[in-house]
């Protein structure tokens, strides 16, 4: 334990201003006071990322690099009532509040006992359509739980009974939007995003009333003519159909009252002929005032993207030293293979580097944004591009440990051939795609000060990538492509423990402490597994 203490001491400058850490979220006698989200207690995991920072780092140390070999199964829960149309894959990060765990798959919600896996209630939404690819989870405020449905609804359930309280349409199914993000509760706002890549619609982010679901503010990813960013589009029509979906949950800095969201690819997705320009604010990391939705700054990881490389990966917030000064930082390992560290007050870029080797950029401009090579845009005869459409990173969450100062990302280096299928002057939809492929996968630990890879653990095979969790126990928990949940030494990358779950890890692991016992919970396919120390 001395080693852990030393790590924590060394990490002190990286930890945000300490707060009086509550020991329990249940102190209020049921429900969840949104103010608790500012400093989540260790017996909870009350938001998609565990807290507002997106770090997916836990201060718990009962499970650590010295004893993790003794980690063993506490319980396993298999989805009841059959799976959803996507095969029952749990891609939601579960929430834990007052000893109860809540999670989703498309159209379904579960409440189970976080100590035993015992089912308390389930809720099934009757769907009117939409793509049932996955659902990332729920949000909780007071005695209400919120989740999005593939048919474009935000649904509120009573936390205790699982009964529906209300639903509000948040997008238009006929326009081929769908909804899959985990809503984020910020004060008296429910922040909701939208999904859908099929027919050239504009993306947006909204805030809604927790009591009624009524719209509070709406931020459009693409500008209107004359607005800032419109100069990066050829005309109003391209802008209005320019895409930029908000697929994942935002992060939030309470001191700045600013939320941070990554936006998706421009549309048409692959054939970008009719949308010359950078196509703002698609493929961007954007800072918005949480109460008004007004933009504070933006940074664009993939100007004029034509490869479906949504820049939606979690914008992770932490404080750290850059150029000898202590700064409020934001980092993203983007789907395009590049890692960025920004000043989250201003958007100024401090670090731009590749976390896997790529072949699509000519260099980096003065703002720190990669400059796309036009020759590596999709071509009629094909262009060999790395990464492939799946990207160097995708939606599975990364992690940042203030104890090690390392940013962890389950990465893929991949090639494919991108083709233009629609060579007309006005392609729509996708207008092309990538085909073929070769890939290798690895867990990368990045030094946020330099962007350099401190250590890399290459998986033996490529494949599905799970999300990550790091802890003050000097551990990183990751899914590998062979259905293992693996615990690695967070400082060195050495694998210390594993359990084969029979299916790849399909979400990001979480941890919480109940009755002086630390639980580690992860989803794999249609099962939720909970591990504890058996000592």
């Amino acid at each position: 334990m001395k080693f852990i203490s030393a790590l924590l001491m060394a990490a002190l400058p990286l930890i945000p201003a300490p707060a009086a850490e509550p020991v329990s979220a249940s102190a209020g006698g049921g429900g969840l006071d949104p103010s608790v989200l500012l400093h989540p207690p260790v017996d909870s995991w009350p938001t998609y990322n565990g807290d507002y920072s997106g770090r997916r780092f836990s201060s718990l140390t009962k499970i650590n690099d010295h004893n993790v070999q003794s980690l063993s199964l506490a319980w396993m829960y298999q989805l009841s009532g059959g799976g959803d149309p996507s095969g029952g894959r749990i891609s939601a990060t579960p929430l834990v509040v007052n000893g109860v765990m809540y999670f989703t798959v498309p159209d379904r919600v579960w409440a189970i006992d976080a100590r035993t896996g015992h089912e308390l209630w389930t809720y099934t939404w009757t769907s009117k359509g939409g793509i049932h690819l996955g659902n990332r989870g729920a949000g909780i405020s007071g005695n209400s739980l919120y989740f999005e449905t593939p048919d474009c609804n935000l649904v509120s359930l009573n936390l205790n009974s699982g009964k529906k309280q209300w639903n509000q349409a948040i997008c238009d199914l006929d326009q081929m939007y769908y909804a899959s993000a985990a809503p984020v509760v910020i004060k008296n706002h429910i922040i909701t995003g939208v999904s859908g890549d099929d027919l050239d619609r504009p993306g947006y982010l909204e805030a809604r009333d927790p009591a009624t679901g009524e719209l509070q503010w709406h931020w459009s990813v693409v500008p209107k003519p004359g607005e800032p960013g419109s100069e990066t589009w050829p005309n109003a029509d391209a802008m209005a159909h320019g895409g930029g979906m908000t697929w994942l949950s935002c992060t939030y800095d309470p001191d700045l009252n600013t939320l941070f969201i990554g936006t998706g690819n421009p549309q048409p997705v692959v054939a970008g002929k009719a949308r010359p320009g950078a196509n703002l604010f698609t493929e961007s990391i954007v800072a918005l005032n949480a109460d008004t939705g007004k933009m504070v700054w933006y940074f664009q990881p993939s100007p004029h993207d034509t490869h479906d490389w949504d820049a939606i990966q979690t914008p992770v917030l932490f404080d750290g030293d850059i150029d000898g000064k202590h700064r409020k930082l934001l980092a993203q390992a983007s789907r395009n293979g590049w890692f960025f560290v920004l000043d989250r007050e201003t958007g100024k870029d401090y670090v731009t580097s590749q976390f896997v080797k790529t072949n699509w950029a000519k260099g980096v401009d003065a703002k720190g944004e990669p400059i796309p090579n036009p020759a590596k845009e999709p071509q009629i005869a094909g262009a060999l591009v790395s990464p492939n459409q799946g990207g160097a990173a995708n939606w599975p969450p990364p992690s940042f440990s203030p104890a090690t100062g390392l940013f962890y990302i389950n990465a893929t280096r991949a090639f494919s051939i991108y083709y233009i299928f629609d060579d007309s002057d006005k392609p729509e939809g996708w207008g092309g795609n990538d085909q073929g492929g070769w890939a290798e996968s690895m867990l990368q630990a990045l030094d946020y000060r330099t962007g350099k890879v401190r250590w890399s653990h290459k998986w033996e095979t490529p494949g599905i990538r799970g999300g990550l969790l790091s802890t003050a126990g000097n551990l990183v928990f990751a899914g590998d492509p062979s259905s293992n949940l693996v615990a690695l030494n967070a400082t060195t990358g050495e694998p210390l423990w594993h359990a084969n779950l029979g299916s790849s890890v399909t979400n990001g692991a979480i941890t919480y402490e109940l009755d002086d016992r630390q639980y580690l919970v992860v989803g794999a396919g249609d099962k939720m597994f909970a591990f504890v120390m058996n000592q």
Partner: protein
Amino acid sequence: MTREQWGAIVSNMISRGAKGSDEEFAEVVDYLAKNLPPTNKVGAPVANAKTQRRPSLLDQAGANDKQIVDEDAAARGRTIYIAQCITCHGTRARGSERGADLVRSVLVLHDRYGSAIGPFLAKGHPEGKSVTLTQNQIVDLSHFLHQQVGDTLRTGPYNHVLNILVGDPKEGKAFFNGPGKCSQCHSTSGDLAHIASKYDPAVLQLKVVFPQTAAFGRRSATNSRKPVTVTVSTASGESVTGVLDRIDDFNVSLQDESGQYHSFERGPGVKVEKHDPYATHVELLDEYTDKDIHDVVAYLETFK
């Protein structure tokens, strides 16, 4: 080409000034579809692509009650479209300077079997020369427009590789025998003899660049893949070589030449050597230019 695809070409000709009645144009389309039907070559449109494709999650896009396109009604609707709409809304209904994009039209997307299109036209559209259609014609037009929407999606029938044969066969030959080092393992009179008659250009290109993964649409391509082999040596001196079955950080398993299955826990005393028969192709991924790829495919396409 299919009747639908010939129809699109004839529509284009009409928009460029071709003269004739609807009946005459329909007759021309019928003649072309009958005498110049679809071929099976990759690169050319594939007949019945929509019905032969395996359904995917992406087919869930939109509402459950979205309009199911009746192809015959859509064909009739196309004729109406050509006569009444094409001048302003374009050959693919994607709009022009004179008329709105109907594929992206929210009104069309909300429409079901003419439920929105009918009332809209009844108000008098276009201005000064209102279209007057029967209810059946409105339904047919609706089927045609929804067909255009469906065809625009990534699951639509036009999402296929176009002409990729842009390379220089001579330079491809030079690459094959030179920096590509292809000739060190392959021969155009041996394993690659008549390769162009086995694979269409688009498939061949994928086979050249990614031979380790199954090229789409060709079962034989999967069957001809060479397996990764592995040699496992233990501290006791045992050494086994065979086809890799499964490997991760903790275990490795294989099948030896006799078919015997072997499984090992990995550890300090266990040495594992993987042999990837496609390692040279992987190295080339960082070395190829796109021109190299296009040239070598053009060269191999000469071996019919």
